[in-house]
């Protein structure tokens, strides 16, 4: 079986669900003949026709809003935003309608929509093309929020997202769209949307990260291992609802925790992780959870973006600080 990249796994999942379910409609800007600017929909229009793989006029509020009406009529819209930086005009429909239709109508109408967007920095793109504002969506009740970090997880989670009866924000870490190849059987097997994945086991510290930041996090874990520190690396993958149990289970062993994300720190998702660890595992902690994150400033133009993104050194340093602190506490 051929090995495929994360973005190809997205295509494979889309194709699988389009084949299986005639209600699935893929649309967005340039998703048709062009196959999407990242080629995530490559070949789909040719295969499934222009009635189901549709280029829209350039209007993100529209892209979000029509999904609500389509879904209310029983379709399964999968809408692509070209970059996460252009999703903000869509927020009103996502927050005020898609996430609320089921509740507003007491179950009469619902919104099984997937809103997809490539996200994150690090590809030397122009301004607005490097956003990671997942925390905005995490705060909205009624949504699911998913970020895959490998081809296999992209495939299984996207299948789950399309089949899910409620709206899902599906953010694709474009920095690792083509970073890794993996065999991903086109099995139609979905992954659960409420379970974290333990990507690496270790008993000394728990590292939590998602999306492209897992690359540096796993590298940091390697480096630490070389120094005798065994890090357990957890990918929540589904950021909302968040599987905190897997984190707590890990803390039973490690008592130490660092959470890593590209997004700005203030009110980022890392804060929620810290808050829940605090609530559910206070006694387990031997040191304050550290956040290694993007800075609380605008993601800079690309010459400085590497300075902004949390790198291996920052993660390793944080881990050592946490461990030192914990040692002071008799770890």
């Amino acid at each position, binding site marked *: 079986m051929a090995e495929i990249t994360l973005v190809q796994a997205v295509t494979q999942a889309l194709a699988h669900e389009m084949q299986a379910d005639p209600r699935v409609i893929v649309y967005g800007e340039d998703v048709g003949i062009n196959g999407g600017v990242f080629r995530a929909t490559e070949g789909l229009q040719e295969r499934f026709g222009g*009635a189901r793989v549709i280029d829209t006029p350039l209007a993100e*509020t529209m892209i979000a809003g029509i999904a609500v*009406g389509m879904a209310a*009529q029983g379709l399964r819209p999968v809408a692509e935003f070209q970059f996460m930086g252009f999703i903000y005009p869509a927020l009103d429909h996502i927050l005020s309608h898609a996430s609320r239709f089921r509740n507003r109508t*007491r179950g009469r109408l619902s919104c099984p929509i997937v809103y997809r967007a490539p996200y994150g920095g690090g590809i030397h793109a122009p301004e607005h093309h490097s956003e990671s504002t997942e925390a905005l969506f995490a705060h909205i009740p009624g949504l699911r929020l998913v970020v895959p970090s490998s081809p296999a997880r992209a495939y299984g989670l996207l299948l789950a997202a399309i089949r899910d009866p409620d709206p899902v924000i599906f953010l694709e870490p474009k920095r690792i769209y083509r970073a890794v190849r993996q065999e991903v059987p086109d099995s139609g097997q979905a992954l659960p949307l409420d379970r974290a994945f333990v990507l690496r086991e270790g008993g000394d510290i728990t590292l939590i990260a998602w999306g492209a930041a897992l690359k540096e996090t796993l590298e940091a874990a390697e480096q630490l291992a070389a120094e005798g520190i065994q890090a357990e690396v957890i990918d929540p993958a589904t950021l909302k609802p968040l599987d905190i149990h897997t984190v707590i289970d890990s803390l039973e062993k490690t008592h130490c925790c660092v959470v890593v994300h590209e997004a700005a720190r203030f009110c980022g998702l890392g804060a929620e992780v810290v808050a829940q660890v605090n609530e559910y595992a206070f006694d387990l902690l031997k040191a304050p959870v550290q956040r290694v994150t993007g800075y609380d400033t605008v993601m800079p133009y690309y010459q400085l973006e590497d300075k902004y993104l949390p790198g291996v050194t920052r993660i390793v340093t944080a881990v050592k600080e946490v461990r030192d602190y914990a040692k002071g506490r008799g770890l």
Partner: protein
Amino acid sequence: MHKPRMQPLASFDIASLQYLDERGQTTQTLPDFATPDALVAHYRQMTLTRMVDGRAVKMQRTGQLGTYPSSLGQEAIGVGVGAAMGGEDVYCPNYRETGALLERGVAIEEIYAIWGGDERGQNFRHAREDLPLSVPIATQILHGAGVAFALKYKNAHLNEPARVAVASGGDGATSRGDFYEAINLAGEWKLPLVVVINNNQWAISLPRSEQTACKTLAQKAIAAGIPGLQVDGNDVIAVRQAVAEAVGLARNGGGPSLIEAVSYRLCDHTTADDASRYQSKETLRDAWSREPLVRLRTYLDSAGLWGDNQEEELQRELTQTLEKGVRNYKETPKDAATAMFDHLYAALPEAFLEQYQQLQGGG
């Protein structure tokens, strides 16, 4: 000075439609649907609309209902739109739509429940596929475009019958990007969508003249390359005719239309508003002379289709209908607190179970 010479490229005309003038006299031959029975039925529904609205305002004043947006003076629009749609079509309402909702089979107690702070009102027992009332202005027009896409797709690819989406909005809605993005898409994709604008001359305190420099709202259709028409929104026959024609066009694959129904808001914006702060008494008095109910009644009278006896009988019947709705509304027990989680997701994720249980335990 240099005078450039231009090449003509395109021309556009906007027209208006009316059957009954302000004095209730016909201005042209009535359409075929305008049988005595139909007109009496419209009169009945307009009267009921006014009563449902009136009672709502009273209930708000006595603390039995929350903020309520009356449609006083705009009854012909709602009833005309509702009458022009097929039962299988899908309505995507604005919030000021009592007449149309009643036509669509939404129950009086459901309308009251919505404004009485209870989501269960949006779970229309009939009109199962109609969208819920929507407060964020113009958003429902985009939802309507989505519905229209689905109807067209299911008709073409899933063997479903040809159906049409009708979305409504106010004059204020025509300033929002959502409105334009929706009609532009509908035009490009030839969606079976009819957009009806209730131009009641006000968006809260902002008069129509300050909403846009356009002479008509109908001409905004030109920006989407779709037909635009203005109708006398106080003339239920004109409204029904225009909407029916647009619905027919849409159903037959002819694409979307925009209809501006010109009316007047004879009431405060909502019960939370005081229109006397910004509206002159004269303007209001003048507008009353064009209102839709008396106009239709005058016509029915003069055509020998109506009289005081029938009016009395109607009032009796509708009072009963209304009282039943009020009773049903008032007698509905409050929902359980946990209801706020029951329909958040199809199945509540484990992560929120703790909160659900907290609520179950009394918060």
